[in-house]
Structures are given as structure tokens and as C-alpha cells.
């Protein structure tokens, strides 16, 4: 029992950031803009957020501090995504190249700024954000133990974002328009929709979520930030594809990858006696990614106009 509880809580640490970042990718790609820069956006977001925590942690209530840091992470991700939007929407640049450029820029920028401000490139912080037990809810037998003890506020935020994303994409006017821009922007255009605006919105939302996701990934798993999110942005892309560009599928995919990642870092407690070399556990998430993508990318549901700059005159 406690093994399962342990695995579950570990999984949450990986699942929630993957989920949020992949949902970020979803908004951008559903509007027709490929977002390979999720990794870079995560790095920028995590950096800004951790920096804030580093300086203000002592003087604030931890939960408030985390919430403000999340907001800052999101906003800096948004600002960073603005570059991607300008390049791919206004200047009709190749979206993969623009994304790659941002990915290369992000860590370099973070190291540069960190050194400028504090000599070392690692930004230290102490993790004071864990909630030992949510009042009342934490006392519910079983469920309380799983969901409301030893948890982070970000876990609930992740679930909230999942539900909101689904509502926005499928139940609102904005969502309908966003999806139409990713499939056939000419249809949206002739229905009087401003494709450029919608694509801007999609890309910026993507930056906000990815930035926030970066911080959410760092906070529970580390005590310093070293301009790196361990390839999570790319893993989130894989989650997005495996999740067939649909919110609930993405949630499933993110959980699957999160679990794989947990196995990689913690091993399976039940199998401890078999003494399987550590490396096998370490490669599982990547092997799983390869296998899963090889089997699922065939019936790909990628938005049809993804990656194509919108051209009004195109017929």
C-alpha cells in the first residue's frame, strides 16, 4: 500500500508539469502554430519564477509566494512566446526553426543573467511549499491520503487547467475559432475570423502554460535551478502527439509518461529483490516514448494546417 502511495505521489511530480506544458502545446498547435519551443519557454518560466522565490521566499507566506512565482513564470513564458508568435505569424518564418532558435537561446540567457546577478549560474531556493495535509479533506480515509496529504498546490492547479482547457477548446466560441484556424484557416478567414489574432492568442497561452509548467517541474524535485528542465519540453511534445491533440488523451498520456519517469528515477519497489541494473529503469521512459510514438503516430490527428503560415490568397 505505501509503495503504491509512494509511486503515485512521485508520479504526480512528473505528471502535472508534463500535463500543463503539453496543454500549452495544444493551444498553440490547435491554432496552427507548431511549438517546438516548449522547452525554452519552460526554462525561461522556471528561471523567472525561481529567481522570484530566491529573493522573496523569506518575506512571504510560502503558498502566496508560490502563487506569485507561478504568475511570474507564466508571464515571462508569455513574453518569450511573443517572439515565436512574431516570427511565425507576422514574419511567416519556418516555425520549427524559430522554435529551435528559442530553445537554444533560453538556457544561455538564463545562465548569463544568473551570473550577472549572483556570480554562480545555479539559483538556489528552499522547498517550503509542501502541504502536509489539507484541512478536512486530508482526513478522508484513503482518498485523503492519496490526494490531500503531502501535496502541492500546483497539483490542483494542473487539474484545474486540464478542465479549463477542455471547456475552452470545446465549449466556447474562442475554442471553436481556435480549432478552425488550425485545421483550415481559409475557412475561418472567409467566416470573418481574424486568423492572425487567434494564432497569437494560441501561441501566447502556450507560452503562459509552458512557463508555469517549467516552475512546477522544478519546485518539488529540486532545490536549485541550473538553466535546465531535463528535456521535459520535448517529452511534453511527445505527450501531445501521443495524446492525439486532445485534452483528456493528453492527460492519459502525461500520466503514462509520468509513471514511466517515476520508474526511471525510483525503480519499482516490488522488483527491488530482482536487482535489475539501474540503467534499465533509466531508459524506460525513452524506450516507451519511441514505442508508443511508433505505434500511434500513424493515425495522427495533427491539426491539418499546423506549421503553415496563413496566406490569405491561398486557394
Amino acid at each position, binding site marked *: 500500500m505505501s509503495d503504491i502511495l509512494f509511486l503515485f505521489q512521485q508520479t504526480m511530480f512528473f505528471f502535472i508539469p508534463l500535463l500543463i506544458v503539453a496543454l500549452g502545446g495544444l493551444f498553440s498547435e490547435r491554432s496552427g502554430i507548431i511549438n517546438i519551443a516548449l522547452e525554452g519557454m519552460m526554462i525561461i518560466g522556471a528561471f523567472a519564477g525561481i529567481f522570484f522565490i530566491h529573493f522573496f521566499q523569506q518575506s512571504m507566506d510560502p503558498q502566496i509566494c508560490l502563487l506569485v512565482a507561478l504568475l511570474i513564470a507564466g508571464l515571462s513564458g508569455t513574453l518569450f512566446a511573443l517572439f515565436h508568435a512574431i516570427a511565425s505569424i507576422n514574419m511567416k518564418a519556418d516555425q520549427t526553426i524559430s522554435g529551435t532558435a528559442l530553445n537554444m537561446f533560453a538556457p544561455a540567457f538564463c545562465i548569463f543573467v544568473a551570473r550577472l546577478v549572483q556570480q554562480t549560474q545555479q539559483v538556489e531556493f528552499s522547498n517550503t511549499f509542501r502541504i502536509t495535509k489539507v484541512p478536512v479533506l486530508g482526513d478522508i480515509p484513503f482518498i485523503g491520503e492519496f490526494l490531500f496529504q503531502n501535496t502541492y498546490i500546483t497539483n490542483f492547479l494542473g487539474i484545474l487547467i486540464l478542465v479549463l482547457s477542455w471547456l475552452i477548446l470545446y465549449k466556447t466560441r474562442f475554442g471553436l*475559432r481556435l480549432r*478552425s484556424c488550425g485545421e*483550415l484557416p481559409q475557412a475561418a478567414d472567409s467566416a470573418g475570423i481574424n486568423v492572425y489574432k487567434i494564432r497569437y492568442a494560441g501561441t501566447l497561452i502556450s507560452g503562459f502554460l509552458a512557463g508555469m509548467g517549467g516552475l512546477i517541474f522544478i519546485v518539488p524535485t529540486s532545490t536549485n535551478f541550473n538553466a535546465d528542465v531535463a528535456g521535459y519540453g520535448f517529452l511534453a511534445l511527445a505527450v501531445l502527439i501521443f495524446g492525439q491533440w486532445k485534452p483528456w488523451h493528453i492527460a492519459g498520456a502525461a500520466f503514462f509518461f509520468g509513471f514511466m519517469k517515476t520508474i526511471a528515477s525510483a525503480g519499482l519497489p516490488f522488483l527491488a529483490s530482482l536487482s535489475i541494473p539501474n540503467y534499465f529503469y533509466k531508459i524506460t521512459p525513452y524506450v516507451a516514448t519511441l514505442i508508443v510514438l511508433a505505434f500511434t503516430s500513424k493515425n495522427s490527428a495533427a491539426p491539418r494546417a499546423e506549421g503553415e503560415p496563413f496566406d490569405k*490568397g491561398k486557394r
Partner: protein
Amino acid sequence: MENVIEMRHITKVFPGIIANDDVTIELRKGEIHALLGENGAGKSTLMSVLFGLYQPEKGEILKNGHVVQINNPNDANNLGIGMVHQHFKLVHNFTVLENIVLGAEDTKHGFLYMKNARKKVEEISQRYNLKVDCDALISDITVGMQQRVEIIKMLYRDNEVLIFDEPTAVLTPQEIEELMQIMRDLAKEGKSILFITHKLNEIKEVADRCTVLRKGKYIGTIDVATTTKEEMSEMMVGRKINLTTEKTESHPTDDILVVKNLSVSKKGHKNPVNNISFSVRKGEIVCIAGIDGNGQTELVQAITGLMPILNGTILLNGKDITHASIRQRNVSGISHIPEDRHKHGLILDYPLSYNLVLQRYFEPQFSQHGFLKFEEIEKYSEKLIEQYDIRSGQGSKTIARSMSGGNQQKAIIAREIDKNPDCLIAVQPTRGLDVGAIEYIHKQIIRERDEGKAVLLVSLELDEVMNLSDRILVIYEGEIVGEFNPKEITVQELGLYMAGSKRGDTNEKAV
């Protein structure tokens, strides 16, 4: 009578071509106004200007006598102008209803609210007899249905000026009949309609007036009732056109293409092609006639290798090609003019010259040691452009996507015929072509036959079937239900077989 729309002295220039050169057109309230012109004459461009997709370099547009500025489709919508495009603009994975409301959605408490929309769509379907299933996905419905969705989209926005860009090119004769009726009803309700078509019969049937364009220039506006079809086509092309095709008796010899007991399966449906056998001989044109969706598409795709078969054999010149790759089929003498020119005919973002050598670029004529010989490709493409009169802005360098629909079709036909095949398979080869081009293509097909090629023609148009074929096979629900000599059967009788209400025992003879 008052003019709802006046377009005055419109000029629109694209790189290398003046698509509209000082064109003036007037649309009266409640009339059906046809727009006639050769492929590439600038009809779609003119209508796109009216709909706000393009900005003209010169000229002005008046709505009800007032000058208006139409910068984008939104402005057009607000002025009550709607358009059904030559290539539909529907989102494939949205439902019918979602496509209709897109851009004009109702919301309640911030969420989409579809109830009123559904009611309004149902009212429109009732009133104009436009039946649709609101909850079906676009990718699951027929082309005819998709067009209805486009029409309802306009009516849903209470548009009063309706533009139809070649709406009939993709429809079956039955669907065309229905559309004509719908257009008449709409005009009676006071809507004004601009109608682009290449079919003079349709203009005769529904239009009140007709404006003719030639190479971007305005030629004139005529009263349809008092003008003959011959006069109209002469105005449009600038020369006399022979509207009936002349051909000599055929003298078929050896079998070229033999199809034996061919079946094709489809998940969740009965076999779209069921145990079909026939042959096409050297020097004859065999036509598969039938109503759309009776297995023609699958039959052709099975023969050309685009679709796997369930069982049966296909022989070309006595050689078994049942399991040959598409490339092998191509080089061993099959040419294919596909039904869907965008999907199987062209690479839309490649220049015209590359498209013209798509199945031949690897031949020594066009490449050496794995490198393309660009000059040769260019020279060859210039030759075809000249010979087949393919019109475009920048010749060989034109990106296929920017070409007019009819000229895209001509490019495919040029490529396939010039390959010098043993067997030419042509599906709806003249879809979307002007009468001049049709005349030319028909001549080419007959010449191919006379040079000893086997021609398999699939057409939904009975006129074309009767005019061109030496032998007619009627297909119904995936089976050949009769074989006829076009001289010995009437269109009416053929129609009965196509509709499945009559069935011949000639199936065996067809082998």
C-alpha cells in the same frame, strides 16, 4: 430595375497576369446572373474581389447605389454578400452545425449556445428544401451535401447576394437538378445570385442574364432567353465552337486492359466493387457510366494501384499487374487522370514544370546520375504548356496552387496523354473545363484511340458518355449491370440501368 451590386472598372493584377482588366458588372435584385468565361478568364478572381478576399488595384464597388469598401470577408458578410467557393471551405473534423455557425456563434454565459442556431438551420433546410444532418462530420458527408452546408452557411447569415463559384462542377446530374431548383427558389425570395459555370445548358436553364469575360476583359452582358448557346460560346472563346464531337467508327483489336473478377472491400460496408470483369481493347473508348458512388472511384483506384484489392486479377498487355506498384503500373503503360485533381493529380506547392514530370523525372531524358536536368524539364514543360494551352501567370514557374481550376486540370491531362500510354484511364476528364477546352480534350482522347490506345473513361455526364464512347458499361452498386453500344441505346434507357431499375444479362458478354 434596381442594381443590388455594381462593380465598376475593376482591375486586379497578379504576378505576371492581369486577372481582371477594367471589368464592370451589374447585378439586379432577384436575378440569377451567370458569369461565363474560359479557364483562367478571371471569374473566380472577380468574385473574390466582391467577397473581400482580394483588393482590386482599380475600380469601385457599389451596394444599393452607395460606394462601399470591402476589405475582408467580414465586410462582405456585413453587407449581406456570401460566397460558395470553387473549392469548399469547410473544416473536415467539425460537424455540419459547427461549420455553419463558425464566425457567427451565439454564446450564453460565455459558452457556445447552439440551440437557436440549430433551430434556424432547421428552418432554412425546410424552407429551401436543403436537407442536412446537423451532427454529421464534414468528412463523412458527400460533396453534394457539403455544398448544401455552404449554401446554408450563407443563408444563416441572412445574405442577400449569393455567389456560387462553379457549384455544379462537383455534383451529379441529380444534385445539379436539385441545385437549380434551389437557386430558382432563392431568387424568387428576392435573393440575387451570381453564378459561375461552364455549362451552357445550366445558364440556359436558370439564368436571366449572363456576363462574358475573356482573358480578364469584359466582353459583354447578354439576355439569356434571346441568345443561343452557340452565340454565347463564340463570345466567350472568340471563335466558333463545335459543341458536338465528331468521330469515326472504332476498329478495336487486341485486349490491352483486362480486369477479371475484381472485388474491393471497404470496412463496415458491402464491397464497393463486387466481382467485376471487363476488358478494354486497342483502339476503343470504353465508358463506365453510373451515378456517383456506385464503385467507380474504387474500381479506378484498384486498377491504378491507389487502393488494395480483395481479389481478382488485372492484366495489362497480357502481363499480370495485380500486385505491381504504382510506379510499375505507370511505366508499363497506364496513364491516370484522377477524379480528385488536388489529392491525386498535383503537388499544389510545386511549380507547374515539376508537376508535369511527376511520373517521369527519373527517366534519362530528365535526370542523369540522380541529378535533375532542370533545363530539359523546363523545355519539356514549355512544350506542353504551348501545346495544351495551359494558361497561368508565370508559365513553367507558376505554383500549381495559384492556377485556375480549369488550367490545373489541363496540366494533368497534358502530362498523362503526353506520356504516350497504352491505356489511358480518365475520370471526369473535363470537369471544370470551358467548352473550348472540352472540345480540345475530347479531340485528344479520340486521337489517342485512333492511334491505337485503349481508353477507359469514367464520367458522370451522360452527354460526354454518349458522345465519346464506343462501348458503355453501366455500373450499379459495384457491379456491371449492362453493356451497350451508344448508338443503340437512348439516354433515358441508360438512366434506368444507372438507377438500378433495369438490369441486363450482358454481364458475361462484357468479359
